[in-house]
């Protein structure tokens, strides 16, 4: 039965729409504000004249940022850790999830192994013991300190193993009969069929690596080894210039003025904004995959 909505109902719908539009504006406003500041002249930004549109448009802040070898180098280290870290992590996730997705008749110790992995979600050694372990392994100031500890993400393993489990068993039986062993079955059947799940975990791993900053701060003694987020943490937020030689202080003050800060934040957010549409699409699938269990 279709009725013309009452006046109250229509009034509600209009208010609701305005309210939701306002909420989404609040979510984006801070990012647009920063973008506007980054393209404004230093004096306009300092005088607080910029709201959501650049005032006295200039790209000086970006020229300034990309002209600084410190920033560019930190950017490069972040790219490195994303590539190496994601590759290693995906490889490990794929081979770890496969045996754990078997039932107990095919793989006797499956549950024991699964608990060994899951226990690390429930309990950890804490900040100091982890730090001292990395240190005693000699990983300080190396890419390994950023990549190895994040190599196995148990949540991703669980997501993938649940996906494996929902693949039709007949496929595996068929490849068995054709004489394929576990390795061949994994590479030729499971991996091609689980590409959507792999894309999801892969994207999330990449974002995780790009965004992580605390490990860089802990494990890198020399600022020239900082990944981008750690570099930004010390320069933009803490404005901690102690590690610099005196001739660099002026350079750092330049990098920390308002428009340059805004430009650096935006450049660091840019790769995320690029992959975001994909992330969002896969994420919905990811929820469905993670929740469907038999």
């Amino acid at each position, binding site marked *: 039965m279709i009725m013309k909505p009452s006046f109250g109902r229509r009034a509600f719908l209009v208010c609701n729409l305005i309210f939701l539009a306002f909420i989404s504006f609040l979510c984006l406003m801070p990012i647009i*504000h920063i973008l506007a500041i980054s393209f404004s002249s230093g004096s306009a930004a300092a005088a607080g004249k910029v709201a959501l549109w650049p005032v006295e448009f200039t790209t000086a802040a970006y020229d300034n940022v990309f002209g600084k070898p410190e920033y560019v180098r930190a950017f490069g280290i972040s790219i490195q850790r994303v590539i190496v870290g994601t590759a290693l992590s995906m490889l490990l996730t794929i081979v770890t999830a496969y*045996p754990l997705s078997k039932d107990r008749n095919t793989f006797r110790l499956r549950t024991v192994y699964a608990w060994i992995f899951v226990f*690390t979600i429930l309990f950890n050694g*804490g900040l100091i013991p*982890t730090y001292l372990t990395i240190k005693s392994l000699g990983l300080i100031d190396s890419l390994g300190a950023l990549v190895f500890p994040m190599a196995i993400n148990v949540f991703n393993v669980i997501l993938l193993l649940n996906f494996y489990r929902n693949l039709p068993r007949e496929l595996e039986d068929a490849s068995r009969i054709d004489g394929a062993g576990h390795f061949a079955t994994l590479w030729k059947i499971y991996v091609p069929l689980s590409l959507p799940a792999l894309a999801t975990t892969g994207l999330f791993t990449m974002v995780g690596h790009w965004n992580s900053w605390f490990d860089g701060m802990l494990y890198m003694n020399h600022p020239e080894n900082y990944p981008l987020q750690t570099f930004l943490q010390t320069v933009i937020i803490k404005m901690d210039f102690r590690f610099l030689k005196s001739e660099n202080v002026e350079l750092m003050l330049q990098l920390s003025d308002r428009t340059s*800060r805004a430009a650096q934040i935006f450049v*660091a957010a840019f790769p995320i904004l690029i992959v975001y549409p994909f992330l*969002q699409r896969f994420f919905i699938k990811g929820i469905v995959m993670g929740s469907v269990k038999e």
Partner: protein
Amino acid sequence: MNSLTRIWKKEWPLHLMLLPGLAFIVIFSYIPMTGILMAFQKYVPNKGLLGSPFIGWRNFELLMDYPDVGRIFFNTVYIAVMKIVAGLFVPITIAILLNELRREWMKRTFQTLVYLPHFLSWVLLSGILVDILSPSSGILNQLLGWFGIKPIFFLGDNNWFPYVMVISDVWKEFGFGTIVYLAALTGINPTLYEAAEIDGAGRWKQTLHVMLPGMMPIIVLMLTLNIGNVLNAGFDQIFNLYSAPVYESADIIDTFVYRMGIQQAQFGFATAVGLLKSVVSFIFISVSYVLAYRLANYRIF
């Protein structure tokens, strides 16, 4: 014996596949767990874990005598619980309102916009917040100025700091919850609404008696899983936004452990504090998983 070798012959590739993953978690998760011994030692870096003298519960007694300990635990639980409650209430409300929109593209656009901050790191968001909330040049204080309100130092005022943490955390994370709850709402059988309408239920009654019960399983699940976060007040966020003047309202267990352990190199003491947190969290997370299994039939694997 014979059957064991037969099983091994069949299953060895599976063991082999697990080997690299196991190596990584043993080195980076289980070996650090042995470092928990430090909590009971006067740890001296040169002497290492085996050479440092054991001092029993002394580190924990030191913690109990520490003048600020009550405040640190209070701040942690206070901020974390407020975040959990607001993080439940806000997305549910927004999801219900969003569900009233009839056009699919509007729902999709809205979800896309509000979910974005979730993917930006707290370093970047803190940089943005520091700029916006600045008492001298921040846009928020300029706006308040139009209404004759004097500049407020949001990040430097103990009365404001915890609430700024909660609001900015909700701002970053509510998009995720909204998507989850909206999915639950979309799954409600439309005949339930029709039945309620025939029984004379208006929109509000339908919200109470159809929508909320329809979302209840997922609400229960999200709430129970959040129990494990009661001691996680958000290190990344607070560490990037706090400063010495607001330690009184902002210092949480994680930031305290960092300052004691990494900055002041009191390894034994910091490990003891961290261990206390890990043990309590372990209990909370285990309870939450058991509850989630009992109440919502949720299994992690």
